[in-house]
């Protein structure tokens, strides 16, 4: 995912987010609204650079290997199903090989994810541990041993979700980081916005206000200072 796509898709989602919408009140003028949208876009672009870019732009060879392994795993699953119906127990050997391929692919993706995930992301928003994401495929992998429809669906789901489950987490992390940053900045801005205060001095009644009598005359002050 490139910056432009990330900013566009996330901006649309953020504009519909209830927390963010608070800062787009109907009281805003057209210019103020445009300025806020532009500010939000800038935050998203910055977040892309700090949180998302590294992950997507450094996938390199391991990404191809992982994709190859996932397809290989799916093929081994299919072969396993065929062998199960044709030769019985031999099918499970092929299926185990399929699980092994897919797990290796997960290992590669997980290593890449752990390397580039943002360290300062909000834990409450998203899953922090890459291993936890990898474990999401455990159920599908176990179900893929089934030589029937369930196994087929599980194998297909595993293939589709494959690398995408890491991509989704990274994008989600970027999204929530940007949202968090925007809310923090806007709250800070609103907290700073204080009304102008006219000093009481402006309402002083000169008739009843006693003038301040200087302790020293200007001549005496000059003498003391010298």
């Amino acid at each position, binding site marked *: 995912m490139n910056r432009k796509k990330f900013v566009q898709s996330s901006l649309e989602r953020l504009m519909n987010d209830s927390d963010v919408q608070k800062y787009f009140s109907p009281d805003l003028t057209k210019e103020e609204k445009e300025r806020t949208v532009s500010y939000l876009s800038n935050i998203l672009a910055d977040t892309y650079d700090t949180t998302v870019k590294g992950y997507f732009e450094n996938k390199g060879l391991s990404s191809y290997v992982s994709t190859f392994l996932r397809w290989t795993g799916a093929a081994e699953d299919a072969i396993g199903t065929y062998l199960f119906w044709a030769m019985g127990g031999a099918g499970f050997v092929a299926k185990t090989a399929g699980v092994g391929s897919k797990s290796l692919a997960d290992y590669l993706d997980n290593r890449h994810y752990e390397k580039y995930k943002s360290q300062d992301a909000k834990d409450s928003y998203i899953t922090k541990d890459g291993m936890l994401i990898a474990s999401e495929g455990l159920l599908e992998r176990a179900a893929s041993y089934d030589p029937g429809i369930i196994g087929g669906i599980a194998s297909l789901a595993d293939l589709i979700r494959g690398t995408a489950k890491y991509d989704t987490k990274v994008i989600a992390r970027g999204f929530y980081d940007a949202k968090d940053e925007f809310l923090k900045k806007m709250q800070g801005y609103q907290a700073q916005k204080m*009304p102008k205060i006219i000093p009481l001095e402006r*309402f002083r*009644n000169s008739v009843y206000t006693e003038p301040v009598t200087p302790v020293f005359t200007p001549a005496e002050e000059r003498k003391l200072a010298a």
Partner: protein
Amino acid sequence: MKVKDCVLIEPFTCNEDATVVEVAKKLRETTLRHIYVVNKHYYPVGIISVIDINHRVVAAEKNPKLLKARDIMSKPIDIDELDTELEEVYTRMATKQRVMNAVAKDGKMIGILTIHQVMKNIQVRA
């Protein structure tokens, strides 16, 4: 528009325990005709006008050296927060015939909002 969009006057206050003489002296030093009474946390609890001093002290033949601010202040008063909508403030002021409200933030008085400011800012928006 909200209260924070208005221009406020610096709080003009006296302590609850101040004597009426002290309050009167403070009042004569400004052109303002009202003074807010604040508690020990600097939160507004009442208001005293020059008319109150005339009606509740002088005309009632009470001793201004013994009477405290809390004895003659008008209460309760309306206190607005910075995020209060001006339409709401205006409605309350008009209904209760108030010319100024205290503005507080985080439990402390930070200024005085006059009806002139409220009307001016509502008018700007209209």
